[in-house]
């Protein structure tokens, strides 16, 4: 079977963004995932966020590994270069691409198998390196393409489709990312587009590694009774700890920051995110407080969602590397090659 291209039909009344593009311009090939898959909703949220943010599609690099989630980079922004690499290794490919060309916006899409089992090391080190990228972890607690094995994010007691209960403790990507020093940590739900879209926009504006753990149910293998990653269970147990409103730069002045529980975080590109916390003592700019809150929710059997932690003053990979603002790929050869005179002089040091 070959991929299915969507017909490029544009409705005359379609709204356009500042670049003159309609939302259809941010779509990709037709999804081949199962009908009702949470991942398709996440794709739709990325499409909307990209359109609303006026991202130039050709300035986006779509990066992924292997798995159902990783296939979805083909389903949005068809005018972007995409790289569907090997299982669990998207973070390293993205690190290299970002090192070479920092002018692109990198959107990485991964899953719980790709990120928390085979790719746990790579994801962790991309966080350490603080690669400037959006990292979507589409989390369904199960291996879909191989038909229903537990993933490392499966909760204790969660049941497989065959009725077997998981006994091993789960890896929570939010707690892990907070521990490793990630500077943007969020959790959301594929069924909650209203929450997800602003978080994606904030993540795209963030300088550094922005991880969004999206609970994205697998309708074929993990949406049954007894699963803790089903639509029903997630709806019932989701507790939005922090609501984020994304405010683009040009509209910033119109937003009055009146409410006491609202914190405004200015992103590096000048846009801002207004964070409304549901618990009065919760500070989403404080790593310890974020960690404690997620833990407390977990102990109560709740799933904490929202933009849980953000630090806009972190140093990213390019700060560590001291690379210039000009992407390395655009530096002319003449500046890279020291030339004959330098070599002749250098040779004297080897005598």
């Amino acid at each position: 079977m070959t991929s299915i291209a969507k017909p490029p039909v544009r409705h005359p009344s379609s709204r356009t963004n500042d670049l003159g593009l309609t939302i259809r311009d941010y779509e990709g090939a037709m999804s081949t995932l199962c009908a009702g898959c949470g991942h398709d909703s996440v794709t739709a949220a990325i499409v909307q966020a990209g359109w609303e943010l006026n991202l130039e599609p050709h300035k986006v690099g779509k990066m992924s590994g292997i798995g159902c989630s990783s296939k979805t980079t083909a389903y949005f922004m068809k005018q972007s270069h995409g790289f569907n690499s090997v299982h669990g290794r998207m973070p390293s490919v993205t690190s290299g691409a970002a090192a070479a060309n920092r002018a692109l916006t990198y959107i990485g899409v991964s899953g719980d198998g790709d990120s928390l089992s085979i790719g746990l090391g790579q994801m962790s080190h991309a966080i350490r390196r603080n690669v400037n990228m959006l990292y979507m972890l589409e989390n369904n607690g199960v291996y879909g393409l191989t038909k229903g094995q537990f993933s490392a994010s499966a909760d204790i007691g969660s049941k497989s489709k065959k009725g077997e209960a998981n006994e091993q403790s789960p890896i929570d990507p939010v707690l892990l990312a907070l521990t490793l020093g990630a500077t943007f940590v969020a959790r959301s739900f594929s069924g909650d587009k209203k929450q997800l879209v602003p978080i994606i926009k904030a993540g795209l504006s963030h300088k550094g590694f922005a991880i969004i753990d999206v609970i994205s149910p697998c309708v074929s293998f993990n949406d049954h009774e007894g699963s803790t990653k089903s639509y029903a269970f997630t709806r019932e147990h989701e507790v939005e700890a922090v609501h984020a409103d994304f405010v683009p730069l040009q509209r910033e002045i119109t937003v009055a920051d009146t409410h006491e529980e609202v914190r405004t975080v200015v992103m590096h590109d000048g846009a801002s995110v207004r964070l409304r916390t549901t618990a009065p003592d919760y500070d989403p700019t404080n790593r310890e407080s974020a960690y404690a809150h997620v833990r407390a929710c977990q102990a109560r059997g709740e799933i904490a969602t929202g933009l849980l932690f953000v630090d806009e003053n972190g140093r990213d990979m390019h700060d560590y590397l001291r690379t210039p603002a000009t992407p390395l790929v655009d530096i002319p050869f003449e500046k890279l090659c020291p030339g004959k005179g330098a070599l002749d002089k250098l040779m004297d040091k080897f005598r």
Partner: protein
Amino acid sequence: MSGINDFSFKMGTVNGTGSASANGLLMQAIFRMGIPVTGKNIFPSNIQGLPTWYEIRVSKDGYTARPSEVDLVVALNPATYAKDVATVRPGGYLVYDSSWPLEPDLVREGITILGIPFGKMCVENFQGDRDRTLLRNIVYAGSLAALLDIDMDVISGMLAEKYGKKPKLLDSNHKAIRLGYDYAKANFECPLPFRLEKMDATSDSILIDGNTACALGAVYAGATVGTWYPITPATALMEQFKAFCEKFRVDPETGAHNYAILQAEDELAAAGIIIGAGWAGARSFTNTSGPGISLMQEFIGLAYYTDIPAVFFDIQRCGPATGMPTRTQQADLMSLAYASHGDTKHLILFPANPGEAFELSVQSFDLAERFQTPVFVATDLDIGMNDWMVKRFEWDEHYRPDRGKVLDAAALEKIQKFSRYLDVDGDGIAARTLPGVGGKGAYFVRGSGHDKHAAYTEDSDAYQELVDRLKRKFAHAATQMPKPVFTLQPGADIGLVCIGGCDAAVREAADKLRAQGIIVDVMRIRSFPFGSEVKDFFDTHDKTFVIEQNRDAQLRSLLAIELGIPRDDMISVLDYGGMPLTAKVVVDAVTATVSSQPKVSA
């Protein structure tokens, strides 16, 4: 050997006691006397305490291979006395530390034993354990200077260069050199029958290791992204790249780094990083050794199947698993040639020495981009870590990187549709675009089945069409890779075939064989896939020897597989103990099967 400017000597010491600087001092002094010299560091996988040796060969004729025999041994490590004494050639010399009684292990008939109280002199003249241990090495260097007639002015000059800003160290080193020198002069007949005499044979040469040379090549080729996971014997390549970049690539005005060096979490990540960078349009490379190549296999297949350029330096070491990581071998040939699962074939370059390593390092980036594929530069520990005497590197100011077929925005304007894997020119190479170009240039890289338009496919014909193009590309590459280097003699019907670091020993062996009346031609292969010249050489020689440093005759297998040469028509000469090849191994193997022939009259 033996005589003026034609002998070898070695020092047996304990790792981590500072002997490296004394050995380097000796070698460099000889080099500066204008005499061709080679040093081989035979060191353990250890930071401190295990045995280490340094072999120096002096050759007025310019032979740089590891010597077949040793004229003089300085035995300073009790743990290896017996072994070290046994390596002295009959009639040779042994120097030992006579601060203690001569141990039975050191006694041997037929050699001259010279006792010098290195330890005692150090205790009497220097303070503190550290100084006494470190300076003992400089004392033996002084004694060797007297025994071998090393120019003391040269040594003094070198010490002044090294310690000019540290007068205390300069004084103690001078004193140590003098102690050793004076003791030898006063107690022995100096110089020995084999000794040094100034020449003028090194003025256009340098002493350099292959890792440094490869790193410099990467700088000159314009590589901007380097990444690696530390591994012996490859690590120094990135350290040198960093040092060169700090010297040449830091913007003088802004301080910005026009390079990115990423220490990866493992070799898998290193492979991913260079492939990501290569896809994005940067010249990128990683340096590793056999175990790293094993870990990178999956990514190598991805880059092959998706036409992404990347350069891998493989500094080969000895053995499977951890093996002997500080010993040399050429045993990754098969694992490089067909790295990864599925049908894969790769381009490999085999430099013979640091001079060629510099040139082929530059060229590897051109080949990777021209053919849009992984390129391996396969050196080994001997080339990578030892100091070799090679000609000064040259640079052609007209050099510009060959970026291969890259369509920019203007080029895309002129075409109807961009199909990433469409072979327009029939050479198997399809034009690529770089991310960010916009317009119709966007495409989707996928490791899964894809057709010539880069679209997903599970169609048999579309799959075969794509992998057949890759095969065509590989065949085309065979005509473009560096040609073999031939050393030919009139009347030869025997051919010696080798790669990489075996070169020096094999060419020396050819000279030695000629002296015995056996005339041979030498073909040193410099790349894989093999060009037609390689096959021609086999077709025109009655008897061929394939000389390589691995157990399983991997080069011979590749020749049999790729060129269809009957395996049994090639006589294997295999040397895989982990040491650099000596001419003797080759001479013995050839003479064992070829009887001497009368010299061909002119």
